[in-house]
């Protein structure tokens, strides 16, 4: 499995997109830290990169990579290898390359310029989102045979998680504003990894704005050990469940 992953990694490195992505992240993070006079404002801009660009790149890159290595996968399938191992090593290689890109591109500048609680929360969220959206992309790609459909689906998912979901939440919160919705928002945040990651960072970044009942609730919940465990657990679920579904679907698939 490791050997297979290594071949896939070489392949990914050869097409240089991941290198370009690393450079892009690095330049953006570095210039933000150099341009803004205070680190917290730079982190704020980076937050948007992490919450928007990272999922998008993870989704698109993963789906395209899957379709491009379709023939390689077919070749591997003709070998005495289990389907689970093939798909998992594909997943592992993509994940590792994207994570490395994130850590070199964003992690190094953050550790250099803002190695505080907010910075670490950002790195945690970024890594989790990379892993989560890679596995969501795998699900989208494995499920649809048609390339255009697969990539379209990935883009739609991105739209949903990055934008539409928040709109829906806003609608729900206003429609039911007469009811106590505070605890319900905890559930709502668990249903979208981007929101969950954002709230996790927000608790470190905007601690003084977190007033009122909702803020206190978030602070008590996410600020405690349970909250960290909850966030990590939910992120893990978001990574594991789509991956498991895609493995299952891949095993039964008629190539």
């Amino acid at each position, binding site marked *: 499995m490791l050997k297979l992953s290594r071949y896939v990694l070489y392949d990914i490195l050869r097409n240089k997109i991941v290198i370009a992505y690393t450079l892009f992240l690095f330049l953006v993070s570095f210039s933000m830290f150099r341009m803004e006079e205070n680190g*917290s404002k730079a982190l704020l801009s980076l937050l948007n990169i992490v919450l928007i660009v990272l999922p998008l790149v993870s989704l698109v890159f993963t789906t395209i990579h899957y379709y491009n290595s379709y023939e390689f996968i077919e070749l591997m399938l003709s070998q005495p290898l289990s389907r689970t191992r093939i798909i998992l090593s594909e997943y592992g290689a993509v994940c590792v390359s994207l994570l490395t890109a994130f850590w070199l591109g964003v992690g190094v500048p953050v550790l250099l310029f803002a190695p505080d609680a907010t910075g670490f929360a950002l790195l945690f969220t970024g890594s989790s989102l990379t892993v989560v959206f890679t596995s969501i992309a795998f699900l989208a790609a494995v499920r649809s045979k048609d390339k255009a459909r697969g990539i379209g689906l990935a883009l739609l998912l991105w739209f949903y998680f990055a*934008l539409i979901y928040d709109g829906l939440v806003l609608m729900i919160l206003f429609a039911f504003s007469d009811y106590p919705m505070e605890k319900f928002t905890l559930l709502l945040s668990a249903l979208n990894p981007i929101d969950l990651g954002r709230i996790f960072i927000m608790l470190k970044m905007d601690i003084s704005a977190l007033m009122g009942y909702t803020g206190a609730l978030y602070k008590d919940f996410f600020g405690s050990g349970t909250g960290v465990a909850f966030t990590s657990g939910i992120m893990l679920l978001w990574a594991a469940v789509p991956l498991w579904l895609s493995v299952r679907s891949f095993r039964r698939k008629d190539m």
Partner: protein
Amino acid sequence: MKHIPTILALLLFLQTGATTIIAGPGRPVSTLRKAIELARDNDSIRLQAGIYKEGSLTISRSITLIGDNNPVLDGESKYEILLVSGKNIRIIGITFRNSGYSAMNDFASIKLVDCSNIILERNTVWHAYFAIHVSNSIQVTIRGNKITGIPASEQLTGNGIHLWKSSGALIEQNRVEGHRDGIYFEFVTGSVIRGNHSEKNIRYGLHFMFSNDDKYTNNTFRNNGAGVAVMYSKKVWMEQNHFEENWGASAYGILLKDITDSHILKNSFYKNTVGIHMEGSSRIEIDQNQFRNNGWAIKVQASCDDNIFHHNNFTSNSFDVGTNGTMVLNQFENNYWDKYEGYDMNKDGIGDIPYHPVSMYSVIIEQNPTTLMLFRSFMVSLLDKAEKAIPSLTPENLIDNKPMMKKHNL
């Protein structure tokens, strides 16, 4: 003019030939009670080091009480330690500890009633109900005292420095910690509070009501339960104070309620949930302040009018300005806002397009606090951008027409 009483006192002193009584364990005058009985006007008592458990003492003659090497007056958690009622009295360098608690009376470590021209200097008060309690007095100076309480509930804890119906007070260089209100003023006029440090009090760092013509400079109020509250007063001058780390659902750097004709300048507000919260306040000039890392830098309720905010710096606040209505009768001018995205074609340092300090999301969150969940999301920033282009929910008139391009050098 202020020195005339002092000079007169000095003349009197020369005339009568004052004596100094040395009191302490092993001396002819072994108790403070005895010393106070012996002392005539203009005498001094030098209290030697030791622990004195003498119940409640009263000083009513014009004497100077000086502690040598930090003598301790212990109230044994039962008594009000020292009651002062008279004129020209000085109390210097004494430690008061364990004064009593009473639900009926405001027991204090040092209580001043109907006094004039009193100086309390370099005393230490530890574990008191009220530490220094002043009522109906004029010309009281409280300087360099260190007051530390052990906070219980709001009912069981008194104020650090409490003044009621007084005038001409000077409260200077004191440190107050762990009381209900650090410094409390009610019906106190023409007084100055400067260079004090009020920290970790369970309610307000500074609380004043119905106190006109007072001046607050160079104080630090940090991490108090609800920050600083200033209510129902006129002509208040607040300069170069620091308001820091007042966090909580109803914690404010300063809460201004029904304040008029006042001036707030050169203060710094750092990491408060709300920097300044204004309600029913008019004709206040707020300039050259720094607002950094606050939840809301300013919350102006629609009940405020004729206030002017100019030449302030707003940096790294989660929200710059919040309000609860669309009516705006206040003016914003020449402030620096780090969220400003405009340009400056003629290079005069002033942005060419106005800045709207109230973001759409701060209006939304005011209406529906649960939407905090969407804070900093892409959706919200899109909404904010759209709202900036075509204002519909946010008050149109709440704008800074001359936002600065560069931070003011404060």
